[in-house]
């Protein structure tokens, strides 16, 4: 079938006119045009005849809607059951939280290594005795050397006794 072509510049307006979407000023001028244009009038008639044919009605029975509701409830329930655990655990693995946890860990390590230095040292010894405690090993060393001196002296005496011979 040979289709009549409407005025090209008005074709979009004719479609909008068919659907009642053309604003009043343009609608009035198009109505005036239609009164004298057979092609545009035929085009509108084509649309009125053709476009309703593309609509298909579907009216499911009442049982369909009962099933519909039941199935939807079931789908929602199963989604909720599935999503509960991942949602709880997933919350810990969100990018923002991971970054925050990482930052907190780094800060904690840094604080431990800097401010925490010496925290674990024993505080059994009073602060005023600390100097004494530092000197004490040196004193022990002195004792050691004194002991060595005594031993040296004993060696000397023994040597001298051997030189005199038995009395």
């Amino acid at each position, binding site marked *: 079938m040979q289709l009549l072509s409407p005025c090209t510049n008005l074709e979009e307006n004719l479609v*909008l006119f068919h659907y009642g979407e053309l604003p009043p000023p343009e609608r009035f001028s198009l109505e005036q045009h239609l009164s004298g244009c057979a092609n545009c009038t035929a085009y509108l008639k084509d649309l009125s005849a053709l*476009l*309703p*044919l593309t*609509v298909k009605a579907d009216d499911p029975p009442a049982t369909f809607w009962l099933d519909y509701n039941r199935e939807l409830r079931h789908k929602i329930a199963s*989604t909720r059951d599935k999503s509960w655990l991942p949602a709880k655990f997933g919350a810990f693995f969100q990018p923002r939280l991971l970054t925050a946890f990482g930052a907190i860990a780094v800060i904690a390590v840094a604080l431990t290594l800097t401010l925490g230095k010496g925290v674990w040292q024993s505080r059994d010894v009073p602060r005023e005795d600390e100097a004494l405690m530092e000197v004490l090993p040196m004193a022990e060393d002195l004792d050691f050397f004194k002991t060595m001196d005594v031993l040296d002296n004993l060696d000397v005496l023994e040597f001298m006794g051997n030189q005199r011979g038995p009395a």
Partner: protein
Amino acid sequence: MTVLEPFLVCGAAKSLQDRSSSVRAGDEELVALAQSGNEQAFEQLVERHKQKAYHIAFDFCRDREDAKDLSQDAFLKAFVNLKNFDGRSSFYTWFYRILVNLCLDYKRRQKRSPTDSFDETLEPQMERSHEPSQPRSPDQQVLARQMSRRVDAALQALPAKQRTAFILKNHQGLSIKEIAELMQTAEGTVKVHLHRAVTALRHSLAEFV
């Protein structure tokens, strides 16, 4: 009664502008309740929108079971993401945007694994959905079936955006403004899509004019 009369249901596709605005306030309250964990409120939202959602899905897929699944999936997605709904648009727009996107995904999946959606197994169901109030002669039935196939094929051949604009306008009676909100595009763009879709369909279905 002509053979075409069962298809003349365009009048049923009345504008939803008024209806949607009248239920919008109620929707907002129900959404707020549903967001706070009230499941009955969500069920009420489903009850309000399920028929409309189903019919939109049916217009896209032309299959009763698929339309049911698609519309249910849209409600499911809405339920899961309801906490993210910030109310910038109405629930009506937000929900139907989810639905239309699911329908378009469905069409894309179908294109990737094409099946003959007009095969003999589906046809009885398709025909049932257009059952006339009066019995038709065998000739009329054959003609109606042929036309149904041609119309479906013509709609399938439209690009996704043109088909979406056309279905929402021609089948569902949404306003250009509503369609623009749903498709997240300008009203002028919707008008262009609609015009192109109508022009293409007029040429594809010229023999039925």
